[in-house]
């Protein structure tokens, strides 16, 4: 049997510990070992952004990151975006602007957008485009997604 390593980290604000297989990437670790199914597999090559999660607040492609690299760090996924039953402003804006059709790229889009807004609360349209530049969408189209992110930025009350 392959070696397995314990990994302790924070997932959406809660302490978590799970065993990672040798060489297991963060995407498979979160999905299979931890049970958070919100990051998606699209390419496994860092090309599509569907697996984007935040590690210590910065967007990372979880398919290209080793699970053990999050030891002691803070991981955020879409599963932790809402505050209880209250959707995050980004989620509200995505719903309002029809910014998801099939919904498969949406978790990655939302996390890339959250990283941007956490850093730059009032981004320009170009900054939004830059922030989701690594996230592919095949059905919704980018315009409603960009509109939604800008709308969320405008609506959000300053922290």
């Amino acid at each position: 049997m392959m070696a397995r390593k314990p990994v302790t980290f924070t997932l959406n604000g809660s302490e978590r510990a799970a065993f990672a297989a040798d060489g297991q990437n963060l995407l498979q670790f979160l999905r299979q070992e931890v049970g958070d199914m919100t990051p998606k597999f699209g390419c496994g090559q860092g090309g599509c952004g569907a697996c984007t999660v935040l590690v210590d607040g910065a967007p990372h492609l979880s398919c290209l990151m080793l699970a053990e690299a999050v030891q002691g760090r803070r991981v955020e996924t879409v599963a932790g975006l809402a505050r209880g039953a209250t959707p995050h402003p980004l989620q509200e804006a995505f719903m309002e602007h029809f910014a998801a059709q099939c919904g498969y790229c949406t978790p990655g889009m939302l996390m890339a957008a959250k990283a941007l807004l956490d850093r730059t609360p009032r981004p320009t349209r170009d900054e939004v485009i830059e922030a989701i530049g690594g996230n592919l969408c095949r059905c919704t189209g980018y315009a409603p997604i960009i509109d939604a992110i800008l709308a969320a930025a405008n609506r959000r009350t300053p922290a």
Partner: protein
Amino acid sequence: MIEFRKEFFADERDDDLATIGQRVRRQDILGHVTGRSPFYDDHRFEGLLHIRCARSPHHHARIRRIDTAAAERMPGVVRVLTGRDVPRNLNTLLSLLDFGLDDEPILAETKVAYRGEPVAAVIAETEALARDAVAAVRVEYEELPHVLDPEEALKPGAPVVCDVYPTNRFIYHGKYDHQKLRYGDVEAAFARADHIVEGRYQMSPIEQAPIETCGAIAAPEVNDRYVCFTGTQGLFFSLGTAAKVLQMPSSRLHFVGGTVGGGFGGKVDSVHEPIAILGAMLTGRPCKFAWDREEEMQVGAPRGAERWYLKDAVARDGRILARKFTGYFDAGAYTRLSSYAVIKAVGHLPGPYTIPNVHADVHCVYTNRTPSTAMRGFGITGVDFAIECHMDKVAEAVGMNPVELRILNAYRDGDMKAHRREAKNCALVECCQVVAEKAGVTLSPEARAASSRTGGGGERARLPAFTRTDQDGRVEGFDTGSYARKTGSAPPPRSESTRHTTAAPQTTPSSQPRPAAPPPRAPQPPAPPLASGQRADAGGSMPPADAASPPAAPRRTGALRFSSLSGFRRR
């Protein structure tokens, strides 16, 4: 300016059309933004196994030998499947609609007909171990000449791509080697035309490229059933296909789907479900079979490439007097949905224009390329590209504004179409007028005054006094492939085989069902699982009959109906 015409579905729509311009929330959007929408892969299974396929590196080759012994000894490998493990290792998707001959193996046994065709499926503890073991599957190939161009594939001596269709063309209803449309007399019109405008148009294959790759997970369930989570776009289509391929009643299969991470047509082929379920049957464990991104792009069936030749007879004033089409639809190595794409294409001719003489020959052609399948308007978008490019070319030839040329030739209400149906609810004239306005194109007063509601009918509603017909493309000796008769699809004779004299000797793959492994609990008829009312009277429980002695045709008493898919049949 915009007027909504509501002859069709009038009582199914509100009159106010108040939704236009409003923001509407999708009913599934909350699941999407919270990441809770259940895609097929969003389920955890204890002891999940992973399936990956060994694939042909050749466009076309005979399989001499498949040696899985080394792969079976690789770490983590639970089982290696080959075609022999598949209860019915020959299928065509539209057999569920009683259309076409079974032509495609689930796992190739005797030969491969495209690069990337699966020959073995490795089941292992992890995806990485399955990948390693795939590299250890040894397949001895004897390369065959291949053909990658549809017109080359129709030339004498071209390699035979798919043994079931030895002329490299799909055979419609066991009788016709292409789809044709004859209306009026194009040759007479060419003789009196002021301009003859010819063009050749080529579309590329296009990959659907969903962000979620195609896949399925199957697991043993209670009551001797199997559950299958799948990203299919056609849940019951995939269910029927799996039941047929696995030779088991569909009541033993529990399919869960409906949440699709982008499809665009590429998720109807039901490639993954039968293999995942077979894996679960033979290992007793949950099995996942999914394409990685490379496979999605390389072996995922794309929109088929189309080649169109158009020839128009045009009068000096821009009226199109005749239009002749020759089309080649590149099905790739197997039929999948291309036979149907060609029917759609021919049904779309000659485009939205009233042309009194139309002639079309459209061929569904096999080549050693990846099989093609559905994609967003397949069969229509390709020929539309050709038609609209050609309209511009015609406009140039007669020195006319291309928008005005379209308005001049557009269907008006009451016109007779080349399919001998009256044009109704036409709107191309109005669309052209709006487009010209938005694009800042100044139209002539006549074009501005034109309307779809005036100028049609009358002379334009009349069928041609003479239609030139011919028997080109009629073939003999092919089975209709009808499953309604329960004879199985008998292999067709090698008609026109003299045209393929250089091809290597062929062995026709067996179309007889093999014993299932593990055997079904009770003898099961090889019934197509989507048995419809139409063929219920053919005897759903009739045992498989020897193809050499077909049973008496079942008596049908209903009205004779014609369908473009299944031809004439009684209800």
